[in-house]
């Protein structure tokens, strides 16, 4: 997380530097071109040069003022229609303001004699204002054009990143996540169970097939209903119970309202698997896992808590890959609004707790107005 915010900072610095470079170059060229035109017509003198310098500085400052306004008012988020009429008015006002300021500045600072040509008549003032108005339009066109291009590129990059993360998760699902060790131990245990308790062996076969089916189905999807993922977690825990027997105790406490909330697939599964692999399994006496899912008071945020017996070891390399992938997918789907933290529980000794927070999005994109009832559970595919 710190990595991404520092790279955001670097991007902002680079962005600001580009802006100022373009501003200074642009307006210097504008002033220089003005001076050149005058020189070509043979009227060149130091007064006019001073005037052009004033023009460049004042226009630079007014256009910078425009940028401050549009950033503060959030114009970059506006639709084209809303933006255009705001620009039409504001640019007009600004052009007028810029010429008024220039008039005063030139009068006070440069004081050109009348023979050289000041801004004596009103018609000239109107002419300059209109010219400035068009120049500002050009400025706005370049500014927003560049911004939209950048935004477009960024959204393309984000889209590809998410795709890559999903693909990676998919590979992990097939290769490591439902790890072969788990799979073959499960099969071996079922083979023994066939002699001991054929009915339970049949149930376990069903858990295993549902688990495999789920992992094949969700591989490649970006989001899945929490209720659906929870079924997988239950199959998984049932099979682990076969291996760990009395060493595994677990409890699930899930608010029904959370079941339709969308999460990246294999997220809960990973948290539970890590809890077993790094928490319970290494202990000869085993331990317990509890998973709870609830909405916060406003109903806008989902909170999932997975606690397990054990001590947190941040350096465990295998869990590192899985967790990094989950964090990456959360970041790409929800930005900074989603958080996943894992740490030793300060309230209970010998307990590791993972907290997952994310904004509530449901399968049904448009929630029914006037209704606090969550999307019906039946909407997720089974």
């Amino acid at each position, binding site marked *: 997380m710190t990595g991404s915010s520092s790279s955001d900072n670097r991007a902002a610095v680079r962005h600001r530097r580009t802006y100022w470079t373009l501003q200074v170059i642009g307006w210097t060229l504008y002033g220089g071109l003005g001076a050149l035109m005058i020189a070509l017509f043979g009227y060149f003198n130091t007064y006019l040069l001073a005037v052009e310098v004033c023009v460049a500085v004042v226009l630079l400052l007014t256009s910078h003022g425009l940028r401050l306004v549009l950033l503060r008012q959030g114009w970059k988020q506006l639709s084209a229609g809303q933006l255009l009429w705001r620009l039409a008015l504001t640019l007009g006002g600004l052009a007028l303001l810029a010429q008024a300021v220039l008039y005063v500045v030139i009068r006070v600072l440069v004081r050109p004699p009348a023979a050289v040509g000041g801004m004596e008549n009103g018609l000239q003032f109107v002419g300059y204002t209109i010219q400035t108005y068009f120049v500002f339009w050009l400025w706005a066109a370049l500014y927003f054009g560049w911004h939209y291009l950048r935004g477009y590129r960024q959204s393309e990059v984000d889209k590809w990143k998410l795709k890559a993360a999903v693909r990676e998760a998919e590979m992990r699902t097939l290769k490591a996540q439902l790890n072969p060790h*788990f799979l073959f*131990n499960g099969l071996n245990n079922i083979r023994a169970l066939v002699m001991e308790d054929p009915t339970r062996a049949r149930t376990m076969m069903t858990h295993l097939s549902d688990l495999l089916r789920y992992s094949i189905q969700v591989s490649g999807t970006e989001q899945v209903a929490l209720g659906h993922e929870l079924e997988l977690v239950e199959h998984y825990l049932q099979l682990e119970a076969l291996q760990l027997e009395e*060493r595994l105790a677990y409890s699930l406490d899930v608010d029904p309202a959370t079941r339709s909330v969308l999460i990246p697939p294999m997220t809960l599964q990973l948290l539970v698997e890590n809890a077993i692999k790094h928490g319970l399994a290494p202990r*000869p006496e085993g331990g317990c896992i509890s998973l709870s899912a609830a909405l916060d008071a406003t109903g806008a945020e989902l909170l999932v808590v997975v606690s397990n017996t054990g001590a947190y070891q941040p350096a465990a390399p295998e869990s590192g890959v899985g967790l990094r992938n989950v964090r990456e997918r959360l970041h790409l789907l929800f930005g900074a609004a989603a958080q996943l933290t894992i740490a030793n529980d300060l309230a209970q000794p010998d307990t590791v707790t993972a907290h997952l927070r994310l904004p509530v999005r449901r399968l049904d994109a448009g929630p029914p107005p006037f209704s606090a009832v969550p999307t019906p559970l039946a909407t997720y595919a089974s």
Partner: protein
Amino acid sequence: MNALLVDDSRLARNELRHLLHAFSDVTVVGEARHAEEARAHLQALQPDVLFLDIHMPGQTGFELLASLDAAPHVIFTTAYDEYALQAFEFNALDYLLKPINESRLAAALEKVRAQLVSSASAEEPAPTLLSTQDQVFVKDGEQCWFVRLADIRLFEINGSYTQIYFEQHRPLIPRTLQHLEQRLDPKVFFRANRQQIINLKWIAGIEPWFSNTLKIQLRDGPEVEVSRQQSARFRELMSL
């Protein structure tokens, strides 16, 4: 032959017990759920063969073996362990993947029978000492070996560990040279000086060295300078 099963999953032990039932010469004398239990059973039951899972709570199967003075005949049983198995220098008797294939199990047991016959004939009647046919389990980073004592030409102090020389390898084992000296057969292994024990069967040449000491050249191995006191003992031993 007597077998000890070591696996943390009760069902996996049951399954293996069931499979072994088909072999009339195999008796399962005990089961252990983890390394500590296995160590106790090994002491008490002295099984001929150990069926050993690698991943267990507490110590792994490798760590169990590395802690033993002499490793028994081992057949590893594991669900899936590409890295550990690939890294393995296979002079382990065998390894079986769970769920275990009956014909693979039969082949593994056949190897154990062959081993038991050959080591019974080579057995030297010194029950408290390790024979040259005994093997130690050595894990060095990703690599594992079962090394016959007969193949080790030199033991050398390295901190609180002992470095052993065999083939081109020089791994460390977590035991002191003093401890090893007590367990090794003095007819084969000779304390050359404070730092080193040599295997007499690996001597390539001996030359007199300064102040009445000896210098011994080992086959494929380093030269060892024998201390003055031990040089005298060595001459005595060899003159017999």
